């Protein structure tokens, strides 16, 4: 046996074999991706119409109806999350990159890393305690707060990495010209990293738009149009969930169509961020 193990042919075959196995594993991982995309597109496209984007949901059994209010709700909650979360997340990231080398910086960095893995449903409970309980009812504001808390840690880490990519020579050139520290940070370092930071923000928005769990018991749901941030609000994701677990075939179709809309939104945000990354890399050369 020893002879066989050390034979060149045997070792060559193991080598080739394992390379093929690894490549095949890739195909295995591809199947679910293709399956999800294919089904969402084929099953969802059937229900697409202008009404789907502009109408309110109809009760069971009635033809037509849409998810207009859910789209507005998602938009509103993501907007609230952006107002609260983007400045905090980006600001914390800039702090980590510019001043974060001490003990406090390391603690904050570690916290941001660990918090970015906390389940979103747990953040939902926190938003419930922070907003829903004092107000006494579910609201779009509570949903927005939950999404904002989710954004902060991931965004802080991404921003830090991007700001740290700015070459030190740029900063030194600016300081050598007599520009004060804060102006150097704002006008030279952060501006250079800006397109990257925008990319990170787009990805954070995409992630927030796809969240369901923290909205179920913060924003709840709403059958009607709602433009009041203090009132319960429908969202695209919660609507998909409700349609999916219902026993009606008609609603299942709507769940697929709403999923297609959600994937298009998330996909566009991802593509936009990718395009921005690419143009930034070109500019750097």
């Amino acid at each position, binding site marked *: 046996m020893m002879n066989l193990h050390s034979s060149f042919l045997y070792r*060559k075959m193991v*080598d080739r074999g*394992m*390379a093929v*196995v*690894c490549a095949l*594993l*890739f195909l295995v*991982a*591809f199947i*679910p991706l293709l*399956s999800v995309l294919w*089904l969402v597109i084929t099953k969802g496209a059937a229900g697409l119409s202008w009404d789907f984007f502009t109408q309110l949901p109809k009760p069971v059994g009635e033809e037509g109806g849409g998810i207009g209010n859910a789209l507005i709700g998602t938009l509103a909650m993501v907007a609230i999350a952006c107002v609260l979360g983007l400045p*905090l997340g980006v*600001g*914390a990231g*800039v*702090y980590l990159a510019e*001043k*974060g080398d001490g003990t*406090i*910086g390391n*603690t*904050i960095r570690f*916290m941001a890393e660990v918090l970015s*893995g*906390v*389940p*979103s*449903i*747990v*953040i*939902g*409970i*926190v938003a419930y*305690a*922070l907003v829903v*309980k004092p107000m006494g009812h*579910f609201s779009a504001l509570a949903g927005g707060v939950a999404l904002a808390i989710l954004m*902060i840690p991931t965004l*802080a880490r991404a921003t830090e990495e991007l700001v740290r990519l700015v070459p*030190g020579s740029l900063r030194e050139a600016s300081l*050598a010209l*007599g520009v004060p*520290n*804060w102006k150097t*940070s704002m006008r030279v370092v952060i501006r250079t990293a800006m397109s990257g930071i925008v990319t990170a923000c787009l990805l954070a928005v*995409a992630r927030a738009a*796809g969240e369901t769990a923290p909205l*179920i018991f913060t924003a709840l749901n709403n059958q009607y149009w709602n433009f009041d941030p203090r009132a319960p609000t429908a969202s695209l994701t919660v609507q*998909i*969930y409700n349609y999916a*677990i219902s026993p009606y075939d008609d609603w299942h179709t709507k*769940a*697929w169509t709403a*999923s297609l809309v*959600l*994937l298009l939104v*998330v*996909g566009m945000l991802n593509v936009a961020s990718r395009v921005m990354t690419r143009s930034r890399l070109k500019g750097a050369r």
Partner: protein
Amino acid sequence: MADAAPAVLDAHAEGGHRGPGNLGDRVFNGVLWTLGIMVLVVAGLIVLNLALVARPLAKEHSIWGFITSTEWNPIEEHYGALPFLYGTLVTSAVSIVLAVPIAIGLGLFITQFAPPKLGRVLTIPVELLAAIPSVVYGLWGLFVVVPWLRSAIEPWLGKYFGWVPLFTGPPIGLGYLASGLILAVMILPTIVAVSVEVMKTTPEANREAALALGATKWESVMMAVIPYSRAGILGAVLLGLGRALGETMAVTMVIGNAPQISASLFAPGYSLPAVIANEFAEAVSSVHIGALAGLGLILFATTFILNAAARVLVTAVQKGPGRISG
């Protein structure tokens, strides 16, 4: 290095508008510091609020009784977390068993076997898997994976592996196996991305040394890449496990939502995030809400520890032992 410059400036412009002591710098530093500290404030708020909401439970139940009791009956105000803990652990274990070998294979293919250009292209589908929202995975699971398990996979497993307690009972589709399978798909991108990161840190010298001694590519992987990145891969797995434990929507939609403990993977169960998602909005009594927040607190503590451990492992590998290149 950057700090040296302002010190010089300061000497020339003492009390002026340029040194680090000027108003602009002080305001800027103060604002930045406040924003940074907010991360810690948010962390504190999370712990504080979870504890506050969970407090009514602690008054009614002992913590040990809460964790070990198997009965969950909100009407009689009896709360036991064990079925949910069990469901969460079993589904996560299934997902890890399914995802880890595939993820390591993918990581090796991207970093070692594929040409560098192809490797970069192949990370795109992995990122796409991560970008799909979990409710869409749930929808797919409910209408594609569950029927497939019920009609094809579970009867087959029962026929040939029915002697294993894991694969007994009627093929329902909804249950631990369906949840574990979908979780595996969802945590795959996390494990692959972090594995690739740590595998890339293997010093070229180590790999080339193995190759120079006549090792094949696979042998160089086993001799140089795997030993070097082992701790980091473990970190990647822990990060994936953390995601699996906390994943809510996809599991809620396919686990069956039955608060029971079954040895068979075909049986329906329940998980920590799923029961929170299903009952929180309708919970009326403060003890019921407290019990759900208590489950949330368990979830928070577990994922916190897992993520912390994972980060320590990954950072240690990325920094490297230092003696090889030095």
